[in-house]
């Protein structure tokens, strides 16, 4: 334990490498031997600190500037393509807004929203229910995990959109194939991700419940499920985007009403302003449903905020 002969020198930061002339920030002692007012350590950046947190003001400010930049890009693109003879044309925000008000006052947009919303409600609703039931079962029981994980892992990689012709053939052109497509396109992701959530339930909690006399059923309902709710809501939120994607695929093939139908029709007649209006509606619905589910998580799991 004697320092002699040791490669480790305590205080190396003080005495090593004299400061280059003029650079007064190495912390090297001044001539009089007293410590200098240098700077030590790597500065912590406000915006660049890894895993740092931002104040509300910064977050709102950055969010707004991101959106402004997006609108700016749109304005530039619209200005540079007006009057162009080529097929590349970007409608201006003003034209898009008037297309939106037309859609709204004629009632078309409301009808489309209702049709698409209903499909999503059924399709994604079924997908979530199946996902939670099977996901919890896979995550909780090794037997179910062993039997189901491999086939679901395989089915997950089948591109659901490629099944549309088959579904139309089997289920007709009504709502059934569209709802089914939304289910098939999202349910396997929901199952496997909920299974991961259920697997993350701390073993200590399951053990504690078991030693207190809880049955398997009670452990599932009173420990695994409550502990998993926040994670399940997160899974629902993340896969919702895939749900909207499947809705568009479903509506593209055979529909009279729906947001995606409106997009297809508008592009066919080169009404890009209408198309942009509907695309923006899609974006707003996405953000709104995301915020809604975040709010639900906040309300439903005060212990996990």
């Amino acid at each position, binding site marked *: 334990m004697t320092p002699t002969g040791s490669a480790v020198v305590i205080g190396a930061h003080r005495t090593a490498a004299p400061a280059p002339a003029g650079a007064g920030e190495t912390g090297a002692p001044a001539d009089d031997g007293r410590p200098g007012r240098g700077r030590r350590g790597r500065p912590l950046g406000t915006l660049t600190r890894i895993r740092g947190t931002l104040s509300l003001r910064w977050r709102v400010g950055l969010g707004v500037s991101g959106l402004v930049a997006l609108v700016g890009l749109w304005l530039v693109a619209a200005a540079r393509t007006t009057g162009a003879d080529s097929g590349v044309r970007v409608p201006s925000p003003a034209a898009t807004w008037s297309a939106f008000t037309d859609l709204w006052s004629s009632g078309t947009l409301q009808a489309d929203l209702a049709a698409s919303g209903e499909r999503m409600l059924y399709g994604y609703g079924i997908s979530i229910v199946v996902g939670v039931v099977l996901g919890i079962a896979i995550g909780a029981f090794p037997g179910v995990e062993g039997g189901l994980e491999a086939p679901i892992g395989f089915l997950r990689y089948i591109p659901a959109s490629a099944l549309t012709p088959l579904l139309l053939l089997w289920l007709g052109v009504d709502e059934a194939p569209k709802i089914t497509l939304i289910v098939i396109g999202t349910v396997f992701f929901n199952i496997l991700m909920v299974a991961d959530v259920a697997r993350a339930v*701390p073993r*200590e*909690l399951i*053990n*504690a*419940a*078991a*030693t*207190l*006399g*809880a*049955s398997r059923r*009670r452990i599932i309902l*009173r*420990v695994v499920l*409550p*502990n998993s709710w926040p994670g399940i809501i997160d899974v629902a939120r993340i896969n919702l985007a895939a749900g909207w994607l499947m809705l568009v695929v479903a509506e593209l093939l055979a529909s009279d009403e729906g947001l995606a139908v409106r997009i297809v029709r508008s592009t066919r007649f080169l009404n890009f302003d209408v198309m942009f209006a509907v695309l923006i509606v899609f974006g707003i619905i996405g953000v709104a449903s995301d915020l809604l589910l975040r709010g639900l998580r906040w309300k439903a*799991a*005060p*212990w*996990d905020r």
Partner: protein
Amino acid sequence: MGPVTGPEVSDPPAGHGAGRAPAGARGAVVADPALLALEGVPYDQRPVKLEIRGLVKVYGDGRDEVVALDGIDLDLPTGGFVSLVGTSGCGKSTLLNIVAGLDRPTSGEVLVDGDLVVGPGPDRGVVFQAYSLFPWRTVAENVAFGLECTGVRKAARRARVAEMLGVVGLSDFADRLPRDLSGGMRQRVAIARALVTEPDVLLLDEPFGALDLQTRRSLHEFLAQVWQRTGATVLMVTHDVGEAVYLSERVVVMSSRPGRVAEVVDVPFGRSRGPELRRDERFMALEDEVDDLLHQPR
């Protein structure tokens, strides 16, 4: 069997009145009069509550085989307090988990009152090191969990929970979530939750390991009171030798790889103990002796 230290018959040090009870632990957990008679009865002459017979636990197979426990035999008398000490990885927690029914032994068996342990059950309450409270349940709801499992009606449940929270001194925190509590308070809730169903055997898996020294000491007093008043049979796993000697009647020192019982040390300070014992020379000498046994190369 290792050396037996001190006289067989317990002989509490001077200055130990039975009337010294810390606040909050006053009579709510009813003492069984039959247990008070245990005072003075030699440890080995009491009826056996918990038997551990030839317990072997092997993890993995072939080349990766690890013998965690290699033939553990241990008896706990009714109302006894035994501590398992050993360096980390000696299999002491594995042993406790097998007694709790949370892990299966490779061979050997655990008996409680002559019944074979095949799985977890409310007859053996367990207090884990930390993070075992249900974070979405309030303190009162956490304590009520075991009563819900055994089908106690709501009114009776509420009364038992309120009583138990009084015992652990947390009545004012009944409606708080675990995250609002300090580490020491959380462990008191965990103890209350394990005790509310009145288990025969209390298993403690390093229950105070994550706490600071001050909190740990106050919980030692609390646990000693609970033990003296309820007469529960306690098996505690710890790496804190002082804690083991201060609380238990017998300390089992385990060796690691494979986990075996290396030494058994009897603690001759009787059932009623108080903080004065910590400054008793006999206590300090015994603590040093167990510490030496623990660090003796084998």
